């Protein structure tokens, strides 16, 4: 289908973008890589008055080191995230999960920030953001504010972003040396995650799990942490029985939905199996 008519602006700085968004009023939308928004527009599920395109703002792209964290520009494409050395070294979970996003064409257009701001519960990167304790920096007419990943996602396709705010970057505390695995379950290669588990662990030389972080995709309206699993892992040796027992806690506190592919019971079961597999793969057991 053909989208409804809209005005289009493509500013070249973040300040200009914020101003353009404010000017355009509350029916305006921000477009990043367009991989989710364009289908929405074409299906006429949304008819914004203006699109503010962030594609020409250089300062929103790329990854930099900042003390104990790395900062990923919101407009960094999935492809660039996967290829980035800093991400690979300090946030291996993000690299691993991003590799499972869609297909190469989409990974060349779609962006990390766009995916988070879209807040599809089946999107793969929200679980990574919550697992890695990321902080999202948003900019609006009243300046900058930082939002913790778990506070950023508020409901299905809904975030703490105000209509006049733009997600600028994502700050991820360094998880240097943490092993990671993103275990994704979907029916065909091109389809969304029915359930997926983002797991990353810091295992010491004696094989004891020092720290663990587990995020769940599509187990609630928003990405959630599987804290009970993490608690059951920390301080234990990374062996199969420990992981198996810990994974049984995977769905605690989650609120999975039912759709034709999976009902809540099946999702709950999948979360446990996939959590076990994700941690096993991450810990190299």
């Amino acid at each position, binding site marked *: *289908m*053909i989208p*409804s*008519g809209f005005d289009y602006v493509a500013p070249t700085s973040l300040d200009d973008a914020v101003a353009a968004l404010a000017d355009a009023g509350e029916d305006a939308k921000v477009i990043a890589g367009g991989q989710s928004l364009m*289908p929405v527009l*074409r*299906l*006429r599920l949304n008819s914004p008055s203006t699109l503010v395109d962030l594609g020409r703002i250089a300062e929103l792209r790329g990854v930099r080191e900042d003390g104990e964290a790395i900062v990923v520009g919101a407009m960094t494409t999935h492809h660039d995230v996967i290829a980035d050395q800093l991400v690979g070294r300090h946030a291996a979970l993000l690299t691993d999960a991003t590799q499972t996003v869609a297909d190469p064409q989409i990974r060349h257009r779609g962006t990390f920030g766009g995916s988070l701001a879209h807040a599809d519960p089946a999107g793969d990167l929200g679980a990574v953001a919550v697992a890695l304790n990321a902080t999202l920096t948003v900019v609006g007419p009243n300046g900058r504010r930082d939002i913790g990943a778990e506070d950023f996602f508020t409901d299905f396709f809904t975030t703490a972003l105000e209509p006049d705010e733009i997600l600028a970057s994502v700050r991820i505390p360094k998880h240097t040396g943490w092993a990671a695995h993103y275990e994704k*379950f979907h*029916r*065909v*290669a*091109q*389809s*969304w995650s*029915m359930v997926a588990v983002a797991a990353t662990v810091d295992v010491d030389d004696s094989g004891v799990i020092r720290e663990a972080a587990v995020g769940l995709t599509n187990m609630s309206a928003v990405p959630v942490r599987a804290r009970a699993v993490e608690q059951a892992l920390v301080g234990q040796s990374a062996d199969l029985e420990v992981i198996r027992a810990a994974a049984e806690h995977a769905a605690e506190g989650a609120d999975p939905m039912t759709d*034709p*592919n*999976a*009902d809540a019971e*099946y999702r709950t*079961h*999948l979360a446990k*199996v*996939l959590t076990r597999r994700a941690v096993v793969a991450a810990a190299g057991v």
Partner: protein
Amino acid sequence: MTATVEPSAAEHEVGKARIRKEDDHLITGRTKWTDNLVLPGMLHMGLLRSPMAHARIAGIDVETAQAMPGVVAVYTGADLAEEQGSLPNAWQITEDMKAPQAPSLAVDTVRFAGDAVAMVIARTAAEAQDATEAIDVDYEDLPVVLDLADAASDGSDLVHPDLGTNVSAVWTFDSAEAGTGTDVEDEIRNAEVVVERTFRQQRLIPAFMEPRSVVVDPTGTQITMWSATQVPHILKLMLAMTLGIPEHKLRVIAPDVGGGFGGKLQVCPEEVLALLAARRLGKPVKYTESRSESMQAAHHGRDQIQKLTLAARRDGTVTGLKVELLADMGAYLRLVTSGIPILGAFMFNGIYKFPAYHFTCTNVFTNKAPTDAYRGAGRPEATFAIERIMDELATELDMDPLEVRAKNWIAHEEFPFDTVAGLTYDSGNYEAATAKAKELFDYDGLRREQAERRERGDTVQLGIGVSTFTEMCGLAPSRVLGSLSYGAGGWEHASVRMLPTGKVEVVTGSSAHGQGHETAFSQIVADRLGVPFEDVEVLHGDTQTSPRGLDTYGSRSLSVGGMAIVKAADRVIDKARPLAAHLMEASEDDLEFSDGQFTVKGTEASVGIADVALAVFAAHNLPDGAEPNLDSEATYDPDNFSFPHGTHLCAVEVDTETGFVTVRKYVCVDDIGTVVNPLIVEGQVHGGLAQGIAQALYEDAIYDESGTLLTGSFAEYLVPGAPDLPHFTTDRTETPATGNALGVKGVGEAGTIASTPAVVNSVLDAVRHMGVRDVEMPCSPMRVWKAIQAGQTSSTQEGVR
């Protein structure tokens, strides 16, 4: 000696793996798709579709839409009620079949979500789209009929209250009545084993790559329609008959068409509406559907409930089969909706020779998109049912599924064989195909691995599935179609034109939409006339160039269309022979024709067919009374169907923890008779397998309880891609068809027909020991996992773990 390596005419084209000559333009897009067409003054049509599955239209307010920018006209069903007529159904399967009125634009009632209720004609497609959204329709809810079994029962709410029932027709075949076999009830009564199963054929969406698209130009003396259709000839005839336009005032062109799978074997409401609008406004009108419209409103496929009762002896010999079908028509009867289950009726006996067969099909209306032809059309349903229940019999008797089949199949020395369903299978060799497939598959090795995995309680279980299928291709002997009350014949037409320079134009009535006709037909003609492959041009898809034809479906193009070409080419040679004799001052009887040369037997004297063509063009030196023309036409009506067969073996791994099914190995040995182009065959088989596997594991058109299609985009309707499919091991045996001079059988649907039961059989084979008796298609992870859970709880035996 041979000084240069010329492309020797003696080297046969037929059998060569020619790269398809149409691919460079199809793949690069430097070609004519309907949506690429731009005509002067062309307007665009947009359709407003009903979101309701069943409702009365209490009012439509088009005022706002009419005033929108660029809008030229807005029409509702009431505006067109008189002139739109009823969309045609060409297959009255019984004398008392109930066929409802099927308006292109709903007049007072909508009957499925997607039914068109209003159309906007505007200067641009975007303006047309905008204006449809400004139309306000007042719907009054009517009861929605969705469940097939409920719809067929007494007291159900009605899709068409004026018909007084949801049952369109009941069609039966009985071997005792037809004199083709014994009485099935007797066989069931006397059977040592009776296996009863009910299978569900889910609803599928054809999902062709190019959406449906139409352009109608009403200017000039004829109305010209370009349409992304499989059936330009049938479309032209049906438009004439439906709309009362004199047939000679219509021209239909199917330019390059990007796939159909039966989904474009249709006279579409959108085609009728574009024509009516163009005629009213006197300007060209274009319509191209969106993907969501295509999934919602273009016809769907399958959707049957199949109840089977199989009678057998303890030694595995099958003695009878009773089939009771419920077939979902959807809301209306489209072109051949009513006949699709009937096309399967002759195939439920498969490759087997049991003596008794009874088939009853009840065609039922529901408030869903109409169903109609989809790749295989009737035969996949039948093949699935028989191949699934043969496995169930094997389980019941604790026999190897291949052993049960071998016990019942027609032995190669028994051909030609008259089947219990009343067909005559001309040829086949099921033993040879099966032996080859078993070897390629490493059947015994995989059985060993399966046993080991079971033994150690592996969470990943291996399953092996068999499908030894046959199908009927080459639609169709016209007399047979007549006996089944189909509205047309099954012949095909061709003409061959020798141009003065020796080049050849071949016109076929079998219009391609991705099959590779241009290449395959060129190969046939190159051999027949002894001209280079490159010198043949195949023309099709325009009723002006190709005035006679019955188009492309039912794997008919080669075995029927190809034979028409052979006949026409032979007539060219017959016409050239006396002229060649004259040119060489020889007697006709002394000439032999091979590799494009007429040679006087026992001499060096010869003349090429191209030289004859030039001489004919000049016409300076022809025999007295000879007509200066080598062009020939031929129409071929087959005496019988052709019957490809094959053995497909599938190995799947089932992750019993999640229910996820991975196809690990797939081997198929097909016997499609003589092969014209192995590369095209390979492509057809691969695509067919993908589509059949998709039915087994992935695809499912799902409506919610209000009749809204939940799988209205590719995000929900899961079409597999290359990463989801295994490497296919394909091979062939070659038992030529005896019914046609080419020895060909057809391969367009074989992969789809054969593969679905092979995959589902393998899924069950993997988890049957866990207490699973059946998994409905598609065998989604959740379904498989739940079946395992249920099986484990219900079975008293210890679980595998």
